[in-house]
């Protein structure tokens, strides 16, 4: 087991964002966390990646080396693509000792090739399309061969074809790296194409869990409302 969360609670000011959230993810498995906006999905990723501390609960990670793909790529805009992808290898003490500059160049080239990109090392992020930026952020996230990969709404803001490309890369990386992956999304296509298991969050807690097939056929009121995008049901969005 690479990721284990037990009884996680988190609140910001007076708002409870997560209450009693527990789940685990094994190596080679992709868990999709779904739910409406503001349901605490991204907060779970921030807790796992160490960006935010939970108020209470336990987190066990089988590997401290974590890769994360951010919703809007979060590429360093003052660095070129090569420097972005090579960032962890060049700046982290443990990797600095392991790689020479030539080896880093090779690794960067290989990771970019893995996400279908080449000859863009000298470009800066603003010269790339949204889909390409997302793929560069994939390459950056996997440059250290992490065993835990977190995706925060990886297909947000992309056209349907680019979304499919990204979803295929998520599936491909899972098999190539044998990593435990968590995909936060609310897009059904991403769930279907990438997830082995799904947990659905509402009001800070897990209200349903199962496989993509189970979700499609579920008569559970939460799963049914989400799959069919119904306004009627037990869940209310921030939009009303």
């Amino acid at each position, binding site marked *: 087991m690479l990721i284990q969360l037990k009884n996680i609670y988190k609140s910001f000011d007076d708002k409870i964002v997560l209450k009693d959230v527990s789940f685990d993810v094994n190596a080679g498995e992709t868990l999709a966390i779904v739910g409406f906006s503001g349901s605490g999905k991204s907060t779970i990723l921030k807790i796992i*990646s*160490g960006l935010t501390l939970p108020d209470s609960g336990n987190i066990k990670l089988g590997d401290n080396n974590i890769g*994360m793909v*951010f919703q*809007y790529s979060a*590429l360093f*805009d003052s660095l070129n693509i090569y420097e972005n992808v090579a*960032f962890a290898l060049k*700046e*982290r003490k443990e990797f600095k000792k392991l790689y020479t500059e030539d080896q880093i160049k090779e690794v960067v080239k290989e990771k970019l090739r893995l996400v279908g990109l080449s000859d863009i090392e000298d470009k800066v992020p603003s010269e790339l399309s949204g889909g390409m930026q997302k793929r560069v952020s994939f390459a950056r996230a996997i440059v250290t061969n992490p065993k835990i990969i977190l995706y925060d709404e990886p297909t947000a803001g992309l056209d349907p074809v680019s979304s499919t490309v990204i979803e295929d890369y998520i599936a491909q990386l899972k098999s190539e790296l044998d990593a435990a992956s968590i995909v936060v999304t609310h897009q059904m296509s991403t769930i279907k194409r990438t997830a082995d298991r799904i947990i659905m969050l509402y009001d800070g807690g897990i209200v349903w869990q199962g496989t993509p097939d189970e979700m499609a056929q579920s008569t559970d009121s939460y799963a049914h409302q989400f799959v069919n995008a119904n306004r009627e049901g037990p869940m209310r969005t921030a939009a009303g």
Partner: protein
Amino acid sequence: MSKTIKIFKNTLTYKLLSSLAKDSIDWLETLGLIGINLISALRCIATGCINLKNTINQSAIFGFDSLLMTLSMVGISGMIIALQIAYEMVKQGAGDYVGMLVTVSIIREIGPIMGSFAVISMVGSSMAAEIGTMKVTEQIDAMRVLGVDPIYFLIVPRILAGFFIMPFVIILANTVGIIGGMITTNIVSELSVLNYIDSVWRGLSGKDIFVSLLKACIFGGMIALISSSLGYKTQGGAKDVGRSTTKAVVWSFVAVVVVDYIISLLFFE
């Protein structure tokens, strides 16, 4: 009772007090964050955790971006001081002291202070905006997930650049200020350039130069620390980046003036 509280909450006094309390908390938070970042940065420097490439890049930015503005401001200040005093002093037979007075004013106060103001507006504001934008676009979060400390990568190089480059900027600015004073003196009075230069030499003291450079080092490091910290504190979106930038400029201005007073008190009382 609850009705009384409700009425009180609508009063101007309550609104003023709550706004004051909110500002005070924000002020203390900012001060705390600057303190924490300073300690983290010093720990980083003490353990040799320095990104040399970034420090060199930031030094170039610190030096070149602010140079023209700094030289202009201190140069014009020197001209203004000379304009105010030269004609009258020469008329009163104290022309020998014009260069000395301009030099002492420039080296002790005008150079470091006006130079810092120029650096704050040109470099400090840009630092706060850049780091603030990185914060709201999750670039700093990405850096942390990649296992790189933003203090090491972003803040330490800026502090070092400010600390080591600012003295060079101020030396140049002081020189331009004194030359500016010379040009104006020569135009508005009959004092010759040689007499002015002679007076400047008599006005120069090792202690004044040392304090001027000390101020430059401290102000440079401090501007970088405050601007980076306020950028780092940004939360929200574009509007908040703008607010952080403004706050960085205001905090830096106030800090420079306060610290200038303390240093002057320590050395010239």
